[in-house]
């Protein structure tokens, strides 16, 4: 197969990083707003923020897995 085309495919696959970065940034912004509004709830807000960040990053990791599969066939 065409090695150059497979390399380009594996790189395009990782454009989902944009979605993950935006998702985590928006979640962190809202979390700091909520923590500033009510400082005594800061602990549970931190827990919710970490869970939201990990769940949002999982979609970018699914794309990385596909990129691994493409590279291993190169």
């Amino acid at each position, binding site marked *: 197969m065409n090695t150059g085309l497979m390399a380009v495919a594996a790189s395009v696959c990782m454009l989902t990083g944009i979605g993950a970065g935006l998702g985590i940034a928006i979640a962190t912004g809202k979390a700091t707003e909520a923590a500033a509004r009510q400082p005594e709830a800061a602990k549970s807000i931190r827990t919710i923020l*970490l869970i939201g960040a990990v769940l949002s990053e999982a979609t970018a990791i699914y794309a990385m*897995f596909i990129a691994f599969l493409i590279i291993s066939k190169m």
Partner: protein
Amino acid sequence: MDKITDVMSKINPTTVFNIQIGSIKIGITDSTISMWIAMAIIIAVAYIMAKKLKQMPSGKQSAVEIFVEFIRGILKDSMDKYSEVFVPFIGTMFLLLVVANIMDIVNIIIPSFNISPPTKNISVVLALSIISMITVVYAGIRFKKFSGWLKSFVQPLPIMLPFKIMEYFIKPISLTLRLFGNIVAGFLIMILIYAMIPEAIPSFASIYFDIFDGILQAYIFVFLTALYIGEAVEEED
């Protein structure tokens, strides 16, 4: 091109030796040996810390009690009534994942020691996810009786049946890929950093990639398992 496949081949498990039982040949890979080391560490630490349990706690026992209270806090959020039943399972899973993900930092403390975390092998992670799903199914059947568990498939609306069946397959796959992807990404980046600047930078990068990522991913795995168990045993009031 040779460098890329050389790096990628470090993820694949390599067979170290074979055990022959009759006519069945069991291959022992380096992931298995790493899991044995993690088990040995946990059993040794647990034996030393909890040797004599007294009514008034002293130093080592307080550390164990802090850990148990932490696990109970995770479970009380998800399920109120049955949290005592699942504390041992969730606690053991958390300890195993923390030790298994952090085993990479030994490479820095003892130079040129090549140990890799067992969770870089997707079979190991898939086995742990299947254990979690079997526990979820078991919790549903034991606390709701078999007919109640079957009825929960069509609970709010009968049209939810295919979605609920699909969930039982998608949940372990998402747990697997999340843990596997994070640990393998950290592992590969550490290999590249070692190859480029082998002197002082790897220790700083390893604090984020190995320790923080390993503990966070272990916490998320255990928290999501507790959430799924809570969903399976909740009562519709």
